[in-house]
């Protein structure tokens, strides 16, 4: 039974990662794509780690998975956010049908000095 639950968690987590990869194609610009990659992937990792820890069934191993998950879910969203921030500041255009860009004034002011 535990085995089934562990396997189920692994499969669901992997399926979430596939959805995250699909999101890389379905969204139109970098700023939308980062949502697919930055949110679904750490959640998928959480499920996969939970499944793997359950399969091991040892507290020491589960603690290590928890540590890796903590590090991953702290650093991964920050990392992709830094990339997107750099992309916006260096002038990457939003998708043409995006109508609201609340940072555009700030960017224009900065470009003008």
């Amino acid at each position, binding site marked *: 039974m535990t*085995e*089934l639950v*562990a*396997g*189920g968690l*692994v*499969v669901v*987590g*992997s*399926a979430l*990662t*596939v959805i*995250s*990869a*699909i999101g*890389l*194609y379905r969204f139109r610009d*970098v700023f939308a*794509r*980062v949502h697919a*990659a*930055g949110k679904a*992937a*750490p959640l*998928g*990792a959480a499920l*996969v*780690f939970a*499944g*793997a820890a359950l*399969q*091991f069934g040892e507290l020491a*191993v589960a603690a*290590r*998975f928890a*540590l*890796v998950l903590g*590090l*991953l879910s702290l*650093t*991964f969203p*920050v*990392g*992709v956010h*830094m*990339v*997107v*921030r*750099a*992309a916006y*500041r*260096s*002038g*990457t255009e939003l998708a043409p049908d995006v109508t609201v860009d609340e940072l555009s004034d700030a960017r224009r002011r900065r470009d003008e000095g």
Partner: protein
Amino acid sequence: MSFDTLAVVGLALLGVAATGAVVRVGIASSLADRVIALDLLVVIAVMAIAIESARDDTTAFLDDLMVVALLGFVATTAVARFIERRGAR
């Protein structure tokens, strides 16, 4: 249905996701796009290591999980600084 079967299904799904990410790296229109796809690839690698070590019931690779995850963050940060200095494309 044993854990082994389900783990192989999970690994196959991760393979699909990794293929998608690699193709995305190839057809990406900007550097930021590529870096995000590569970042996803790093997380997929971490997950695959976790599944594989649970399948083999060995704790030998658990430290590698941490190393790969943190290396991925450092690399992403470095590229983000690089994009900011050099400009997109």
